[in-house]
């Protein structure tokens, strides 16, 4: 979790650095009076790295994924809840009294 968060921060920093480098490059182009055709190759690499890091952090930080498969242990229903709304009390439990030594207060 903490590692994922750190990676996310690193990714955002790299992305902002890429933006800063592009702005610098454009001012440089204005001075030399050339046309802007695309960012330099190191900025493209930086962008890709930042994208991968941010994506990894976004998948890792918010939590675990839930299983989508029907037969996975989280989704497979193994027993129904007892129908408590219809519970009745005159069952054979009466014949086996619990040690009613338990008292409230």
């Amino acid at each position, binding site marked *: 979790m903490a590692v994922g968060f750190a990676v996310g921060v690193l990714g955002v920093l790299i992305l902002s650095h890429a933006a800063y480098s592009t702005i610098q490059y454009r001012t440089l182009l204005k001075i030399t009076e050339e046309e802007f055709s695309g960012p330099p190759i190191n900025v493209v690499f930086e962008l890709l790295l930042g994208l991968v890091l941010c994506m990894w952090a976004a998948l890792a930080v918010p939590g675990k994924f839930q299983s989508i498969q029907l037969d996975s*242990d989280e*989704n*497979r229903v*193994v027993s129904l809840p*007892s129908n408590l709304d219809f*519970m009745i*009390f*005159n069952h054979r*439990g009466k014949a086996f009294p619990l040690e009613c030594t338990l*008292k409230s207060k």
Partner: protein
Amino acid sequence: MVSKTEEAEVNRLESQADNGGGGEWEYLSLVRKLKLRRPDKVLKHGLTILNDPKKRSSLGHDEWTLYEQVAIAAMDCHCLDVAQDCIKVLQKKFPESKRVGRLEAMLLEAKGSWAEAEKAYLSLLEDNPLDQVILKRRVALTKAQGDISGAIQRLSEYLEVFMADHEAWRELAEIYVSLQMYKQAAFCYEELILSQPMIPLYHLAYADVLYTLGGLENLQTAKKYYASTIDLTGGKNNRALFGVCLCTFAVAQLTKGRYKEDKESPELQSLAAAALEKDYKLRAPSKLSLLGSTLRSLKLSS
């Protein structure tokens, strides 16, 4: 609905609480959330919390929920004094409450004074004639007195109003099965499958009912529903695997000589038998020979 992981979690918390490792409140909350019926454990652990003023006050407002839970568990265990005490505390805290009134009527039920309980429920219904929980309690009250046909009648009246209540459909299905009225039970299970199609246990119960009814068409449908149970559980339900084997055998008996091989899926039963053998080998090797002879008698293995 209790999934596999939740079941494991409950069992872990239960043994932890039983061995004095704490976690009673988590256990009780989980039991309440999953709607399990484990009255003896709830009574024991619930009273440990309620009798300890420090633990009790740390719960805050959940204290009253716990009182209710323990009261019902105590009635289920026939410790009526404990139930009476819990209800008295709740009565003091919430006078005029319908929910406490319901508990008092349930206590009358547990004591076996049916007429008084019925009267109490009727007076609660006067204020709110469509109170679902109380209507259901009246069904249970009739059932507790042994008047099963009366319970069926009340339950069908209830279901005419509240058709989406799947718990009531399930109760009706189980009552019909207990009376061996399988056609009616099949109808109820159809309703349940319609309202919750992803729960394998309803498919399984429906298939069981159809298999019990018998007849070629029913057996073929039962086989399909056993197959859908296998699909939904990933083949981890042995009852469904056995069901497929039995249905195949019964269908083969019925159609002997009349039809030539018109099977849609000839490998289904042999695959089911293989899955059973694998599971038995893994979990109960000593019973493997028993399984082998059963399958041989169903002509599924040589």
